[in-house]
């Protein structure tokens, strides 16, 4: 029997060298994860607020419009979430493969089920987008189910990404049950960490409404003012709640890891500081914007600050992972042999792709006020 505490079984790195320096992948991982998490927040938060609006629409007639308005955006946001999620999934496997594959295998069935849940949720969101008006009752139910499914997917992800960084837990789990039904429920950080992400999504969902308010401000001021308020308040409350949940998450971390953010690691501490101050600033800015009915301040100001806060949080998340893995993982373990014959090609295609994408959006009229009418 392998006893807990014995050096855990960490798979060896495969014989093929990294095809570019470690930091390149780390940077790509961070950047693409950040984009993914932004899209995910908009999608999940949007779906949650659409449902809330639907549930409370009998008392507030304006809210059935919110429901319809936001629900139409969810499929595209989910498409963005998935498409932007593929890249970090790729890069995390490049540098953390040994940890990632192992923890996914331990929870193979839930991980596999993600696919099924995702397809179901996705079609559900499309159903809601197309039937919200004609069949609001059915659409509400389907929206609820789809939201529950993506929440479940998020929960599976949190399980995997926490289990991945705690190799000491693997062997006992695996040998007790190799059939792929292990989650990471015993991890005290699991629930606060998950709630931390979900609450962030709700706050960002509020911002989505504020951004919609900005787009509607000229043509439909009454509705725009309403969703500005609805979104802005949601953002404020969710971000306030985040202080409690974040604290809970912080306390749940093992002491040495917690101390990373409180002085032990300068970068992590700085990110933490900026994150906390930024969140406070965002709440303040939002309440000012609401008070003055200044939609630009709410849309651009708060969104900008929040985007910066989320960036800090993403970096902290990465610091935390590396700290968890510190006893086992070090970048110098990798042999590196940069594939100069193809790496520049990727960079070229990547930059070309971004430009092409912007041109596509521009020609569609998404950057101009003479945009085509909303669907």
């Amino acid at each position, binding site marked *: 029997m392998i006893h807990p505490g014995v050096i855990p079984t960490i798979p060896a790195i*495969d014989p093929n060298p990294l095809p570019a320096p470690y930091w390149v*992948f780390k940077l790509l991982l961070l950047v693409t994860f950040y984009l993914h998490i932004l899209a995910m927040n908009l999608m999940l938060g949007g779906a949650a607020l659409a449902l809330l609006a639907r549930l409370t629409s009998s008392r507030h007639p304006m809210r059935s419009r919110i429901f319809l308005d936001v629900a139409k955006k969810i499929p*595209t946001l989910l498409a963005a979430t*998935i498409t932007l999620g593929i890249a970090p999934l*790729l890069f995390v496997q*490049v540098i953390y493969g040994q940890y990632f594959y192992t923890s996914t295998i331990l929870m193979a069935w839930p991980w596999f089920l993600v*696919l099924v849940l995702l397809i179901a949720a996705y079609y559900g969101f499309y159903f809601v987008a197309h039937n919200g008006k004609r069949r609001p009752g059915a659409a509400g139910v389907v929206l609820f189910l789809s939201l529950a499914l993506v929440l479940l997917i998020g929960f599976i992800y949190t399980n995997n990404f926490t289990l991945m960084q705690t190799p000491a837990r693997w062997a006992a789990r695996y040998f007790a049950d190799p059939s792929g039904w292990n989650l990471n429920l015993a991890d005290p950080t699991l629930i606060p960490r998950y709630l931390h992400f979900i609450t962030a999504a709700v706050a960002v969902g509020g911002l989505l409404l504020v951004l919609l308010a900005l787009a509607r401000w000229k043509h439909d001021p009454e509705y725009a003012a309403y969703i500005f308020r609805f979104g802005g308040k949601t953002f404020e409350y969710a971000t306030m709640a985040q202080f409690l949940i974040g604290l809970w998450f912080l306390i749940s971390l093992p002491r040495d890891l917690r101390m990373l953010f409180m002085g032990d690691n300068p970068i992590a501490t700085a990110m933490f500081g900026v994150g906390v101050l930024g969140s406070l600033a965002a709440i303040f800015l939002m309440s000012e914007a609401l008070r003055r009915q200044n939609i630009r301040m709410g849309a651009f100001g708060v969104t900008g600050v929040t985007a910066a806060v989320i960036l800090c949080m993403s970096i902290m998340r990465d610091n935390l992972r590396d700290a968890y893995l510190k006893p086992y993982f070090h970048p110098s373990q990798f042999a590196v042999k940069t594939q100069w014959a193809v790496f520049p090609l990727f960079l070229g295609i990547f930059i070309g792709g971004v430009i092409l994408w912007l041109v*596509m959006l521009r020609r569609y009229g998404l950057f101009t006020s003479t945009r085509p009418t909303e669907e």
Partner: protein
Amino acid sequence: MNYPVWDVLFGSGLLIALVAGLHVFVSHFAVGGGLFLVLTERKARRTNDLALLNWLKAHTRFFALLTVVFGAVSGVGIWFTIGLISPSATSDLIHIFVWGWAIEWVTFFIEISAVLLYLYGWDKLPPKLHEWYGWIYFLAAFSSLVVINGIITFMLTPGSWIDVHKFWIGFFNPTYLPSVFFRTAICLALAGIYALITASVQKDPDLKTRIVRWGALWTVPSLLALVPLGWWYIHEIPASLFLSARGPMPTATHFASLAWILLAVTFALMLLAVFTPRRLHLVFALLVALVALGAMDSFEFVREDVRKPFVIENYLYDNSLYASSMPGDGGFTVDNLNNTGVLHAANWINQRNLTAGNQVEVGHEIFRVECQSCHTPNAYRGIHQLIEQRQWDPASVSAMLTGLSLMHNGVMPPFAGTDAERDALAAYLNSLQTITPDPSTFTNGKLVFTNQCSMCHQNQPDDPLFSGLDPNPQVAADSLKDLPSLFPLMPALKLNQTQRTSLVQWLNTQRPAGKPGAPPSSAAQGGN
């Protein structure tokens, strides 16, 4: 070996087959159907065919809902699944081809954006601009295929990558080109086949006729082109890979025949649709699609099957052992396992010490790390069933384990580990059920051959089993007492007197007529 093995009761291979089998059918449509959308739009606008244009709008929605949701998620799904089932191979492929995957991701991103804009742009954009999005979509989707194709074909024919480890050498491997053309033809064929589905629900019979004829223009020539392209593809694959397909259980050959047959049926059904377009019914359209799905999956299955026992040909076995040792192999090679023992070389072994009491449990662990990538105990390719079918007693099971890599012309990696570990594995396999062969089977020479020899020898006069045996029945029967002395890699099977005599008797009936004894066996012996 390196990673834990996910213990799937019914066999993890089936999961991959399910996910990949459905995905390819949609992803190829996503490419061909993209070109179909733009060209059909152009045609409809040129001929001012409003009905066709309206149908195309609906068809776009069908296309987008299918490819953006199911196609995209199942594509990620293949990746999820192979990571769970072949983590070592996935890790290798990612490290070798990250930049390929990353480029594919960029094209995928463009693809998804373009198709959504194309879909939502139907009523908003001027025709030229709308078609522009369609073209971008198609080019991006086709680029995805061009990239992924390099990685998929690499797994089957890595070619000289094995020696030089260079990205482009592996990417443009021997089957790269035939596969690109072959798959492109599939894409175009599917565009027409899927068009039948949405055409079949149209009310206007003239419109239906126009769509079916137009779709057939895509499908019929492409299906015909698949024949020479398939031939080309097969000829670029080293003949040695097809050896197992000609073995005693020619699974790959069966699927290859099935693929050709279903291809022909698809062709026939398509012609039928062309001649009776007005009566086209949804059920019929779905039937065509189903047959085409069968044809395509059979082809994919052949590709997967001839690759056995490797995930990456000549590089990595299905059970994650490397074919030869190299720096960084982690000790996961057959040689190293033979020397140090699987219990010590493999990760993810719970009981590393073999004792008299834990043979079966340890054997189970060995089974998990060495065999379970292709077998299950009782279900898919179940060992239980295989042993039962052959009526191997415990001693035979143990002996046979030394010859796994020779069976079926090479579909399995060799057993790797020490003798004691092999006995433990045999003990586990025998614990699944213990066979006491019925003595009446001993007197049937053909049955003895089938059960004891046919996994390595074929019932053909030129097989060394026929040509290499002494012509004298008595001498021949005696020589079978000790198979390794006939050929050192043969398993040390203990056939009893009755088995040996009846086997030789039957063998002699199988030799070519007019040659009562063995043909001069110099050739066979010279080969040894």
